[in-house]
């Protein structure tokens, strides 16, 4: 039904893993010694109290924020080219990257052209999956918070990528939209895709592994300057 769009086109991914990851923000060590491994069709749920680094970890996984220590691997090969890694993933955060002056379908088709190639059928299916079809020609500035978020999520379906990184994807969504997202995730995983979700709710990924970031928070507040290594701080 709705998720079939990406069934055929998801690139098969082997695995995505990280070893000994550490990250600091503003001199503070957010987490350290963090390991994870995800295989095709797998899902990982990031949990932890506010400020435990869920969003930061997602940005590290996306290659936006450099990790202070540790390595990440894609198909057991260490990731050294951030641009190549970026092509394998989609990141959805609370910043929805929506231009209010463009219509709903213009917003979506821009990202589609950027990542893939224009394909009207696929665009319509993505709009349909998140119940946006009747809003397609409306300027995005008229959308409610929930509708904007649905539009952001529809980006997942316009161009295939094996790894989805979702930051609190349930925020501002109604029950029907949550179900739509859960279906999209299920279809994505069935096609061999991987999903990493930072969420307090378990609804989207029922059978995924859980990574509690609270466990990796340093017990004592550690400050160190740039020239000291993380190993020393640990």
């Amino acid at each position, binding site marked *: 039904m709705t998720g079939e769009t990406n069934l055929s086109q998801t690139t098969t991914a082997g695995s995505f893993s990280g070893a000994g990851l550490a990250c600091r923000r503003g001199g503070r060590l957010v987490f350290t010694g963090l390991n994870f491994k995800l295989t095709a069709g797998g899902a990982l749920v990031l949990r932890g109290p506010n400020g435990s680094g869920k969003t930061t970890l997602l940005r590290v996984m996306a290659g936006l*924020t450099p990790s202070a220590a540790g390595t990440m691997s894609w198909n057991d090969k260490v990731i050294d080219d951030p*641009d190549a890694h970026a*092509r394998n993933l989609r990141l959805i955060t609370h910043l*929805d990257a929506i*231009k209010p002056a463009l219509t709903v379908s213009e917003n979506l088709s821009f990202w589609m052209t*950027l990542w893939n190639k224009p394909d009207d059928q696929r665009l319509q299916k993505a709009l349909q999956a998140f119940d946006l079809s009747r809003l397609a020609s409306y300027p995005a500035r008229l959308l409610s918070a929930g509708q904007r978020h649905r539009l952001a999520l529809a980006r997942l379906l316009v161009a295939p990528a094996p790894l989805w990184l979702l930051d609190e994807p349930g925020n501002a969504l109604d029950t029907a939209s949550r179900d739509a997202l859960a279906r999209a995730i299920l279809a994505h995983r069935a096609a061999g895709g991987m999903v990493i979700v930072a969420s307090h709710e378990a609804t989207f990924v029922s059978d995924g592994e859980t990574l509690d970031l609270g466990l990796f928070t340093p017990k004592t507040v550690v400050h160190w300057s740039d020239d000291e290594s993380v190993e020393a701080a640990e």
Partner: protein
Amino acid sequence: MSVFSALLARDLRLALRQSADSLTVVAFFAIATVLFPFGVGPEANILARISGGVLWVTALLAALLSLDRVFTVDYEDGTLDQLVLSGAPLPLVVIAKVLAHWLTTGLALIIVSPLLAITLHLPMEGYAPLLLALFLGTPTVSLIGAVGAALVLGTRRGGVLLALLVLPLYIPVLIFGTAAVESAVTGISSDGPLLVLGGLAVLALTLCPWATSAALRQAVE
């Protein structure tokens, strides 16, 4: 290349839908220039003497007014994160954005500049060199401005900081832009200054997109 054209088309469409932004820049250029005859007095020969310099200075300030927007909106709404993650070479993304900026502001300034030159009594021989100089100089202005705009992302009062960062770098463009107009007016060939402006544009095109990319990567960390 699809990234380049998609981004350029989107930015131009946005500029068209929000045309007030570009019009503000042109209006600022016009008003700032028209202030000079009031301040200096209506004597044609004095105005003619300073017209090239006045037009260049006001054009630079007008361009500066618009630079603030080049990356700020994309940074604040998360588009920049997605553009960095597009997997396309970031300098290419930067060139597309700068080209869109130049088409919507630099080109607009060039188009209205002959009208404003009339109010400053620019001698007839000065028009062609003025347009050529603006045509060669404003891309450099956009390119250098992009570096500054990317560097001040995420800072408070970035607009003022941007002016402090970027205006000193505009001095070479200003010197040779004005020289092109003045040498034509005094009857000397303006080829020299124009060639230097062209050289500056090539230099800016080869350096600025990479510097801007580095600043953008820093900003999305």
